[in-house]
């Protein structure tokens, strides 16, 4: 029986940054090959500087790799121009940031509907989809509030709703609990786990917090730009 292809994968992925003022170049990610199946909840952990965030940014098409490939639903992101990559980010990827990154001048529902508005979806449909996404994260009652009137946890749940509004192939979260207290962290992690369990959403998150990583079904540990261990496979020697 043929196994389904991963929804998101990398092949010998590398990212090198040029050193400043005569310093040597820095290899942030070195030859990472990884596959994420549909409906998986993957946590990428590692110490600071291990390359986990850089890996996530390449998975999300935010930064381009120096070498290797990123495949999303079979499409090699490296072959896409800027506009095509923007379309992928708009329609197939939902991104959750550590610092929420909600636009302060928009209400919560307007922030959530922004990816749809960028795709020129009719305003009424945008609002309906945004309210549905807010409902899914338990924030519909705060739809008309501005971000500066919400707590950190509420803002992050709003950001998760924004990531879900386009029904993406994968949700990528970069330290989603990094700016939250333990209670709110737990709520956010629980929300992500429920999205995976109930909706079959594929979630890949980066964290340095072992309790957050433990909530994921699969933990990939990185060290010095390489995968040190992967609970889905054999650990590297």
């Amino acid at each position: 029986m043929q196994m389904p292809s991963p929804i998101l994968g990398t092949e010998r992925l590398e990212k090198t940054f040029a050193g400043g003022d005569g310093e040597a170049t820095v290899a942030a990610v070195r030859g990472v090959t990884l596959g994420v199946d549909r409906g998986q909840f993957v946590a990428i952990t590692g110490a600071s500087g291990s390359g986990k965030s850089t890996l996530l940014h390449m998975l999300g098409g935010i930064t381009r790799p120096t070498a290797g490939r990123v495949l999303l639903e079979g499409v090699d992101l490296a072959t896409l121009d800027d506009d095509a990559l923007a379309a992928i980010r708009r329609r197939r990827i939902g991104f959750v940031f550590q610092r929420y990154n909600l636009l302060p001048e928009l209400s919560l529902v307007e922030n959530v509907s922004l990816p749809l508005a960028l795709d020129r979806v009719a305003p009424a449909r945008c609002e309906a989809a945004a309210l549905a996404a807010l409902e899914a994260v338990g924030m519909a009652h705060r739809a008309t509030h501005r971000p500066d009137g919400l707590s950190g946890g509420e803002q992050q749940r709003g950001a998760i709703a924004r990531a879900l509004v386009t029904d993406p192939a994968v949700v990528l979260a970069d330290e989603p609990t990094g700016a939250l207290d333990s209670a709110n962290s737990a709520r956010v992690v629980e929300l992500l786990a429920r999205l995976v369990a109930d909706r079959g959403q594929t979630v890949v998150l980066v964290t340095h917090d072992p309790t957050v990583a433990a909530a994921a079904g699969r933990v990939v540990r990185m060290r010095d730009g390489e995968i040190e261990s992967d609970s889905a496979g054999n650990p590297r020697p």
Partner: protein
Amino acid sequence: MRLGGLLLRQWSRRPGRALAAAASVAVAVGAVVATWTAADASRQGYQRLTEAIAGVPTIDVTARDGQRFDASAVPRLADVPGVRAVVPLFYRPSLVRVGESRLREVAVGVDVEALVAEGLLALESGEPCREEDELVLDATLAKGLGVSVGDEVLFFARRRIARMRVTGLAATDSLRWFAEGATVVVDIQVLESMSLATAEVDRVRIALAPGASRDDALAAVARRLPETLAADVPAGRASLAEDVLHSANLGLDFVTALTLAMAWFIVGNAMLMNVAERRRGLTLIRVLGGTGRQVRRLVTVEAALLGGLGAAVGAAVGLAAAAPISAGISRALQTTAPGVAVHPLLVPVAVALGVVIAVAAAWWPARQATSIDLLEGLSALPAEPPRESMRGLLVAAAGLTAVALACELAMAYGFLPPRASVVSGVVLLLAFVAFTPLLLIPLVRLLGRLVPSRWRIEGALAVSQIARQPIRTALTAGVLVVAVSNGIGLGHAIRDSVDDVLGWYAKMLKADWVLTQAGALSVSRQDRGAASRAMQEEVGRLDGVADVEGIGVATGRIGGKACVVVARDLPAGLPLPLAPVDVTEADVRAALERGEAVAGTVLAQRTGLKAGDEALVEVFGRSTPVRVAALVVDYTSGGASLVVRRDAARRLFGMEAADVLLVTAAEGRSAALREPLEAIARSHSMVLRSYGDLRGFIDRIVSGVVGSLWSILGLGFVVGSLGVANTVTMSVLEQQRSLGLLRAVGMRRGQVVALVVLQSMLLGAAAGIIGLVSGVTTALFIQFASQPLLGHPLAMHIRPGVVIANLLAALVVTAVAAWLPARRAVNLDLLEAMSAE
């Protein structure tokens, strides 16, 4: 929600930022409208001033042999482009008797009715004379004699005495362009008949239309004339006002062009800051899947909307400012203000200009916003200017400098007209502004060391804040660089040009009294030699006269180019009234005594004459070789003069008469000479003026021109100040968060205000220094550009007062501009400030 809605939300959340951006366009467009209007008013004022002094711009057609000629020999000239009227003129010394008063006056015969109809002669009262027993009197003379319209006077010309009725009184100013001192105006056929000189004229004067090119008209007229006639610019009239005004007009071009450049910087900086402040938000849109095109459209639409709004306000303010500015300039020039004529297209064009400037200024920030790395764009730290940007600026600065220098060299070798110096000056200024980001930070660091120790911490923080954003602070500084450069550069150039002319006139006019032949300064009559000598002796015999110098003037030609031959006595006891170039005064005297000539630098420039050349000089229809011993700075007839001693002029050219007598009085005897000199002047049909009258006449031109130019330069500084104030306000708004953080870690409010003000003043001081270097270089460029016009380099003098005033103004403007926004910023709630984006 559409992206347009996002724009409105951003404006409503940060109205100050949007308003400041719109205000920058308002300042820019208002400045352009006001400066354009002021420059236009100045040019009109100069035109009226020139006409008031020198009359209507004209060309003279005269006989090459200097005699009267048949008017029918002049072909049709009325259809030559630029010609307004063709006016045959006939002069006749005459006697006028009113009651017991007998006056020797010069009468001029002209078609009075046609001149009045054309608007070239204004009558204060009455109507033109037509019949053979009618005449028009100069209104000033009539007032002195107590004569009114309808009165009768006895008029004696060559053939008869006639009882003539005064039909009109002519405005003295309106006579000036053709009367040559004549105060009695008679129909030309009547005067010719009375003088037994039917159909003969002394000259045909061609009045040019306003704005017509005199050179083009002169060439066109000359092509049509027979060999016996020549066309020339009337000597002595051509450049008296233009000597001072040519650099003033050049200065106006500079100011207008530089105001446009300043407008660009003001708006460019505002748009850059407006976009940079929203870097994270715009990057987030891209991260969420917005395309670069969408982001660019957002920025461009915003720029267009803010630009249109700002431009509408700016155009209104500019127009409102135009009327008092124009009135002030007209007062400075002592002419009548024409009133501000608002062209129907001015406002729509100004609004369109504002939109275009805003959109164009937003182009680069929009490009930056869409090309920045997504991660960098999302970070809280400000983006470092890429190294390529700084290298690009260095290349641009070097390139612009090379273009400016190439322009100047092309002008020096005659490949480009002197007016191209406007282009090279603006390009050079842009080069300095391009150098500003490269020079600003090192300068600021250096100046930071001069901050008093009391504000050492604030000074150090101010320097580091400036260094964070070199390109943006350089744009703010660029506005001041332009303003200071303008003030210092143009201020010096204009004053140096004016001082050069004034210095020459001071040297030239070393007499107490000046007697000029009515109808003189144009053609010297060979048959007046004996009478002229007799008159000079008569003046010399007067009690209280220390010296009398006679000056004869004739128009001539060298190499086909018009010149003025000036024959002077040059008494040994008096200083030489010429400024030699590359030789001594003793050399010039010796050469003149040998019967050689010296040439004005402008004549030399036009004809290619050099010291030592032998030139063929045509005077009175005869060509005579003359050795040109040296070149001199001489502003007679705009420097197109050839100077010889009178005895040499008699021998070489047959110039007998003195058209001008310079009378030097003995110590304390000047006032007492007025009456006897007036009597001699009347008996020989000459005009008497005191040195004070002439000097006042020149001073009027100078003070008016300088006053008008300083007004416009001052306007430029005000605009620059508003621009700086606006961008400093935006800069402080942008720093709210960091200022809040500083307060959170314990900095006092007063310290924060000092930090912001110091930051602004350090920028102002650094910009002032760059502006000083730029200004001095601009002044040198303008002086260099004047050389082809004047034929000699102008001496440049650094005026410490001008420099210090401009530098101080830069410091004060920046300090004041930062004060209020700083006070507002520190009075914000601490948490609100720290959470500001």
